[in-house]
């Protein structure tokens, strides 16, 4: 029998039909829905007079547009001040009602960012295929699930058929060998990987992350790594199933119970790449070499370690890179600056589907505990990933640590990651952000985003500028 990668196995298990033209019909176990990319899909169903193929194969929650302040949240959807946002959230509620799809609406404690909610509920399980009209669906690959973002036409396609027409991708292995240094987190690992292979390095591939540097991560950390596979160009990130995966899933509301649990665990143990399986590309990083990372430009690949100088356009040889760096320097307002500490920060954002889980909040709280946010900052906000993460954090007293240090404690949602709600950057403002994209205008018109880990964002909030968190906690 030939050896297979984890991706090969997941593909084979979900193959409904191989067509002569090279395309394949792949079965989708779970579709997550949110308010932004689903309204046109539901409308399409209605116009074609179609019904969802399998209602239980879907789970919905509003996240992108929802306000994060207590006042606006108190009245649920009626409290949304922005009328356009409100229509979108109401539309999701109505569509889920009409088609009978389970939705955690704004008043439900289980509401949150889809990529936090799915795993938290055990809706995401090892060995599944998971899709969502959101590129960060790669997050769920942390469970050894084949998960990727799709456009709205495909959301409609999955609603109507529970399948997608796909072509198989190539296999890439990114191995991180060794042990990570203190305060070097999953976020630093994935940013370092993107810095190494570039934002298009994974295009056309499914990336499996492996090695001791990955295996030692918690499920929260693994989700952070897979979440940003798309930032390396790969729609899918994957991590093999091990005991850490199984322990996380056990006891979750939608996870199998009793005899089915034992049967499932037995099946999940095979969700690893076979010894000697073929990868079309292999990239190896040493965990010890990875330092806390900060992006300086307008693409996630424009990233350096905290102690490195900001790279200059004139030092680049590739003309496209030269042009890109010059444009990024101008947009980010870096003239006259040479190191990251020279950048004065205006805001700090801790949250997003990349870094809003309990472990992220714990480490950020550990860094700010007993310290005060720099007076020069306009704002520092912490936005938990779901109502349940929020409740857990409050039970541990993290909210008080944050507010005492001068950070705002918010209600769950996507928030300032993409600024579809009221949380956004002003023109020209610099932000230390635990989100996933530093594109021009991403966090607000003219806003300047620097991607970092939760610990580094917390340290930046205290210092008012970027600083190695290891240095900060020494004092």
């Amino acid at each position, binding site marked *: 029998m030939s050896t297979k990668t984890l991706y090969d196995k997941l593909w084979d298990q979900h193959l409904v039909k191989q067509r002569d033209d090279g395309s394949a019909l792949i079965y989708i*176990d779970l579709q997550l829905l949110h308010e932004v990319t689903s309204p046109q899909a539901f409308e399409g169903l209605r116009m074609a007079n179609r019904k969802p193929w*399998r209602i239980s194969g879907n789970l919905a929650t509003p996240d992108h547009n929802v306000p994060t302040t207590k006042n606006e949240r108190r009245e649920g959807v009626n409290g949304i001040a922005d009328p356009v946002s409100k*229509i979108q959230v109401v539309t999701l509620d109505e569509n889920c009602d009409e088609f009978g799809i389970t939705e955690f609406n704004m008043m439900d404690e289980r509401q949150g960012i889809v990529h936090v909610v799915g795993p938290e509920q055990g*809706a995401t399980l090892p060995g599944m295929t998971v899709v969502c*009209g959101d590129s960060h669906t790669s997050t769920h690959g942390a469970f050894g699930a084949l998960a990727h973002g799709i*456009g709205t036409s*495909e959301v409609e396609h999955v609603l109507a*058929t529970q399948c997608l027409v796909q072509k198989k991708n190539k296999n890439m292995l990114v191995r991180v060998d060794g042990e990570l240094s203190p305060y070097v987190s999953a976020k630093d690992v994935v940013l370092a990987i993107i810095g190494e292979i570039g934002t298009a390095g994974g295009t056309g591939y499914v990336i499996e992350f492996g090695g001791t540097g990955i295996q030692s991560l918690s499920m929260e950390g693994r989700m952070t790594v897979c979440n940003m596979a798309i930032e390396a160009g790969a*729609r899918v990130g994957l991590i093999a199933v091990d005991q850490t995966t199984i322990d996380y899933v056990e006891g979750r509301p939608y996870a199998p119970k009793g005899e089915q649990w034992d049967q499932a665990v037995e099946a999940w143990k095979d969700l690893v790449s076979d010894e000697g399986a073929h990868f079309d590309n292999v990239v190896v990083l040493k965990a010890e070499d990875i330092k806390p990372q900060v992006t300086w430009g307008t693409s996630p690949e424009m990233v350096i370690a905290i102690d490195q100088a900001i790279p200059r356009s004139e030092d680049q040889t590739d003309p496209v890179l030269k042009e890109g760096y010059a444009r990024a320097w101008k947009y980010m307002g870096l003239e006259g600056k040479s190191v990251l500490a020279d950048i004065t920060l205006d805001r700090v954002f801790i949250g997003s589907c990349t870094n809003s889980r309990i472990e992220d909040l714990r480490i950020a709280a550990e860094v700010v505990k007993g310290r005060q946010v720099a007076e020069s900052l306009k704002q520092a906000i912490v936005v938990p990933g779901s109502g349940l993460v929020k409740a857990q954090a409050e039970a541990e007293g993290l909210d008080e640590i944050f507010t005492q240090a001068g950070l705002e404690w918010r209600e769950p949602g996507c928030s300032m990651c993409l600024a579809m709600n009221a949380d956004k950057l002003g023109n020209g403002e610099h932000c230390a952000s635990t989100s996933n994209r530093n594109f021009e205008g991403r966090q607000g018109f003219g806003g300047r985003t620097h991607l970092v880990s939760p610990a580094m964002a917390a340290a930046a909030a205290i210092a008012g500028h970027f600083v190695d968190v290891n240095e900060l906690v020494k004092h």
Partner: protein
Amino acid sequence: MRAFTQHQGIVAPLDLANVDTDMIIPKQFLKSIKRTGFGKNLFDELRYEDEGQPDQECTGRPLREDFVLNQAKYAGSSVLLARRNFGCGSSREHAPWALDDYGFRVVIAPSFADIFFNNCFKNGLLPIQLSEENVEQLFQEVANEDGYALSIDLEAQTVTTQSGTSFSFDVDDFRKHCLLNGLDDIGLTLQDQDAIKSYEAERQQSAPWLFVNKG
């Protein structure tokens, strides 16, 4: 879906690499629940000097004169030429909707991000991948000639310049077939509904935990 067979149109050169879908259509416009009307906000932040708002009238907004779509010689362009990794980032299908709504039928670049590339085919928009060298040559030719146009033939898989130079490109058979005939791929998939049902029945036996009801 509208079919795509052949197209001839004026080329707009967007000399940028890593054009992301946030750039193509910024987030505030994703609040729409429709598929149309995004064209006036295509490349909003590159195109206008002020911050655009949903449902805002765009005539009269201050333009960034140096942006390619604001230059008179590229008026009416329907072929967009760009650099590598076009369409990276967010999966928003609003990006091809906006390009289509503006009037683009073809995007040519040395490489595309996977999700954007796939989304184009669902909307009658043809993304064409040519080599870095060929794209560079096209950029140079556009710069030297006003009203520069290209002819695209999907059946023949060729891009042809006015001087007669032809470049061939690859396209998947399935995607080509759907685009040439303007086929609704949900309808095509439903022709295989027996295969889907039998797959489901087998999985319900072998992996019943995948079929839990989410009450």
